[in-house]
């Protein structure tokens, strides 16, 4: 839906005064908001906002975090010490707090939301990549590559990264759910997308002023948000179960 939103005849910013706060009806499937704008159209454009932020935050965080984590574990020594300290430092903050403070002071815009969420998002990937690389370092195929004189970048890219992909994809899936909620939260606080652009969080905030007369304004974006996050979380759980099964089998295989 979000992907094809561009090609749909949507009018998310059309102000239509007669339909102000109108409840859902045949003409307007999800009703209208306080300015008479159609909620369904705004929901779909809000989805574009969400996915834009989720895509960029998770991609950049994964890239930065994984690289740093792998480098840290592989080279060890002073590099490892410094990177681990930095990771610990970022873990000392409740992440949403740091994101709120950063995007608030940078000024409300979508780019700043992405930046703020990357600042708090890369740590998870870095920690995961570091832990996995540390254990992979001792695997035979990696030791063999080292013995054959392979260069560091080649080992990291060809021998370690492929084995990291599964846990990283799971981390990224849960990351998407987290980022979608965080973006909506920042927009709810007025720190994300600016009006008239639509975002689910901003729609919920606008709706809270009209809860008594137009509950659909809070319900529609909230339920959408819940369903999307739920779907992503379920998908993540499924992936994790699959991976776990593989791991267990692997361990049993080694035991025998």
């Amino acid at each position, binding site marked *: 839906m979000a992907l094809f939103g561009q090609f749909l005849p949507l009018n998310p910013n059309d102000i239509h005064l007669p339909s102000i706060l109108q409840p859902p009806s045949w003409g307007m499937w999800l009703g209208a908001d306080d300015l008479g704008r159609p909620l369904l159209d705004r929901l779909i454009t809000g989805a574009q906002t969400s996915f834009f932020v989720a895509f960029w935050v998770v991609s950049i965080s994964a890239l930065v975090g994984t690289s740093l984590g792998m480098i840290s574990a592989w080279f060890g020594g002073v590099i490892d010490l410094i990177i681990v300290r930095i990771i610990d430092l970022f873990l000392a903050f409740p992440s949403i707090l740091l994101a709120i403070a950063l995007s608030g002071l940078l000024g409300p815009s979508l780019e700043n939301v992405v930046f703020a969420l990357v600042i708090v998002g890369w740590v998870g990937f870095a920690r995961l990549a570091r832990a996995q690389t540390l254990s992979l370092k001792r695997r035979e195929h990696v030791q063999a590559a080292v013995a054959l004189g392979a260069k560091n970048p080649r080992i990291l890219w060809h021998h370690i990264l492929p084995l990291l992909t599964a846990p990283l994809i799971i981390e990224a899936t849960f990351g998407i*759910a987290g980022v979608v909620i965080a973006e909506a939260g920042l927009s709810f606080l007025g720190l994300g997308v600016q009006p008239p652009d639509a975002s689910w969080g901003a729609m919920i905030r606008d709706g809270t002023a009209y809860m008594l007369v137009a509950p659909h304004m809070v319900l529609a974006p909230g339920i959408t948000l819940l369903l999307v996050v739920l779907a992503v979380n379920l998908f993540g759980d499924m992936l994790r179960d699959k991976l776990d099964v593989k791991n267990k089998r692997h361990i049993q295989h080694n035991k025998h």
Partner: protein
Amino acid sequence: MCGVIIGVTVLVFLLLHIVPGDPVEALLGETAQAADYTQLRHALGLDLPLWQQWVNYASHLLQGDFGTSLYSKQSINSTLLQRLPHTFYLAITSLCIALVIALPLGTLAALRQYSIWDHGAMAFSLIGVSIPNFWMGPLLIMVFSLSLGWLPVSGQEHSLSIVLPALTLGTALAAILARMVRATLLEVMHEDYIRTARAKGLGEWVVISKHALRNAALPLITIIGLQLGTLLGGAVITEMVFSWPGIGQLTIQAIQQRDYPTVQACVLIISISYVFINALTDIVYAWLDPRVHYRV
């Protein structure tokens, strides 16, 4: 821990001083005279090199002085002292609610694995994790304040005002904890000492309460400690939803007013509380587990 706290102050300081956006300009407005601008910059010590600003800031901080608010011109310390008790009250109430929901639910789910109870508990947990605070809050207001009229909408004048914000935060935390309780208990139930206890002919209730839950408590305490940080972060949004006059609301107000020293103080105090809670968790862990003996 001291290292982390010093690091936290440096990082907060750097982040707030590197971001574009000038507090002096925000204070004076764009039409200000250049002379006023330079004077105020000098008065606030913002014309000094960055490291010197940090040294000034840190030395005040060491004396327990968070500085003066740019907006209200009052000492930030007194504002913090006013706000902190509200946030701690909210956090502790939420934690209690979370434990009351999560402990029985997680235990039930673990003992009757794959039963309808288990599936129900895990569905609750998954939904709870997926509902953001800023939607749960308005939803609860709609049901309990607007439709049923049982509870006050916001503020803290009424003694029942705590219920809705604490429920919002508490259920979110309960969702995470229920999962953890289940997972931990499932692991413990497969241990040898549980088999031994059963083999001794102990009643199932004694096995669970004395042997399983006690051992499961240890990892759970670590998890709860870690989650309290999330709780403090989540409190920022929840306090906004319910106009709860805690430190979270102060943070957002300070951000909107571009009151840099106050934002800095809020982020610092929440992060330092978080670091302290984690340290405290380790101590409680050591105290509960006779196998761990920390050399002090």
